[in-house]
């Protein structure tokens, strides 16, 4: 079958790969309907996640139709239309039982790698390097889904493929941030990054009753989407002083909750951006934490800063003094989607969560390299390139 693969740093290919087969009783094989690019892929493309191997199939945000079912699967049958959470979690270990699904003990067959990096191993994710399990990704005609009873969710009849697709990754990631940061009615919430993840975090915060939600970016088309489709306010960080504006619109306090949805390749302005770029290129720091620093600085005393953006290793000039002295709560996570997908699908069927607009460019697998180029360059207003393997 054809698949979009990682060929090397900044090199995406389309090639023939073998079809997957059922290897565990809890597997299903899915015929992929739609498969999206995600900001996390850009960290792989750029070479910031070191355990990619040429030929690895990319893609972890997807939906499709079940075509084969393993012997131990009880909740799915051939023909079911499902959306799959990007993390492969067992549902049985202590972490899964605490609903901290991306921390699953049994979803990553290569635990030695993340244990070496971070002291403990986290769960596995499709198409996301050998450190996160070496699972083949979804930019292909078929994908094997392990632990299918846990990770695959039937899509309600009234919800389109284009909408349900984002219940795989962008939406549950946003929900993870807003929920675990403790967004409560009356809160002022600021979100850095107006990509799929930031937009969904903003929507989740609104649905949790936040009084004001402000999304920060510099890309006009994305800020426009936030206003039109999400209904949140926006700030263009290339034009205004972000902490100053946030202070003003929160009565001088600063936001109660700051959600960072930018990640380790943050863009920035001025000399500190150059400093971070140089240090990252020399591998003296692995990640550029521009937006996290700003979020910590802007946050009100006693507030919460949540990093949804992916970081891999070490950052520099981290304002620990502000965290400590302002009494902040600092938290982060990969998405615990299994916990939120049922609510998200239900809200999608009631039109309370709309996501189709994120799929700005829908194309065939053969256009994989062009799709990634557009997404990386944010060309032509690209928010997410989406592949339709059936084309």
């Amino acid at each position, binding site marked *: 079958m054809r698949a979009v693969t990682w060929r090397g740093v900044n090199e995406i290919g389309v090639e023939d790969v073998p079809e997957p087969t059922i290897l565990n009783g809890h597997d299903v094989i899915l015929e992929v309907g739609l498969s999206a690019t995600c900001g996390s892929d850009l960290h792989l493309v750029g070479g910031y996640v070191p355990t990619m191997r040429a030929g690895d199939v990319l893609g972890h945000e997807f939906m499709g139709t079940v075509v084969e079912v393993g012997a131990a699967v009880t909740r799915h049958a051939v023909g079911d239309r499902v959306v799959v959470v990007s993390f492969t979690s067992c549902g049985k270990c202590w972490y899964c039982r605490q609903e901290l699904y991306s921390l699953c003990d049994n979803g990553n*067959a290569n635990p030695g790698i993340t244990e070496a990096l971070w002291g403990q191993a986290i769960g596995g994710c499709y198409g996301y390097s050998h450190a996160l399990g070496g699972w083949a990704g979804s930019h292909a005609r078929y994908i094997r889904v392990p632990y299918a009873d846990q990770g695959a969710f039937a899509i309600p009849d009234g919800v389109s493929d284009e909408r349900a697709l984002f219940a795989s990754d962008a939406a549950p990631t946003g929900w993870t941030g807003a929920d675990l940061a403790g967004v409560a009615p009356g809160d002022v919430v600021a979100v850095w990054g107006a990509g799929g993840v930031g937009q969904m975090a903003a929507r989740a915060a609104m649905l949790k009753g936040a009084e004001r939600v402000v999304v920060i970016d510099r890309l006009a088309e994305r800020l426009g989407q936030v206003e039109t489709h999400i209904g949140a306010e926006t700030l263009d960080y290339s034009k205004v002083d972000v902490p100053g504006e946030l202070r003003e619109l929160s009565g001088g306090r600063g936001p109660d909750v700051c959600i960072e949805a930018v990640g380790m390749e943050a863009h920035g302005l001025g000399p500190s951006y150059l400093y971070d770029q140089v240090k990252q290129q020399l591998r003296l720091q692995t990640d550029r934490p521009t937006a996290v620093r700003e979020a910590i600085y802007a946050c009100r005393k006693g507030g919460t800063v949540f990093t949804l953006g992916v970081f891999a290793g070490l950052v520099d000039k981290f304002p620990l003094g502000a965290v400590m002295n302002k009494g902040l709560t600092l938290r982060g996570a990969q998405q615990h989607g299994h916990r939120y997908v049922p609510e998200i699908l239900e809200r999608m069927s009631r039109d309370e969560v709309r996501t189709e607009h994120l799929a700005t460019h829908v194309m065939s697998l053969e256009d994989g390299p062009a799709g990634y180029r557009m997404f990386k360059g944010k060309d032509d207003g690209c928010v997410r390139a989406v592949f339709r393997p059936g084309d």
Partner: protein
Amino acid sequence: MTDPPTRLLRAGGDLLRRLAEPQELRPGGSHAGRHCASGWLSVTVLCEPDDVREDALPGPLAILVDRIEVRVRPAPADKGTELSVRFRDRPPRASLPRRLVGDDPEAELRSALRRSKQLIEVGEVLVVDPAPHGQRPATPTGMVVESWTRAAPGGGVR
């Protein structure tokens, strides 16, 4: 065991260890982590202590039963059961870089312990390969990733 991929792998493990945990910042400097005096390797399994019996260990540990000691005790709160194993002859601990890439005598035990936990919790051991993939040219970095992946089930910090 000093074929080129293994040497590369060790160098990679060393580099990574420095990156992830700058040596000079570790309490005890470069000697920290070298001695874990008791030699026990432990996992916590979400099950009752009675579900892990020394005379009926899960397959991956059962085949090692003549060479290992086993300790089972309840974990605090609702966390399940702590299962610890160590080799009877207590081989000297390998350096951290070698443990991280599973290039040490205890790699076998680490892997058996993880697979046993999975068997108890899930009922199956997760299989990833063969996973679909495209052309894999034999580049030096690719070989490091491949060797490390092969060794990762037995690699670990302890």
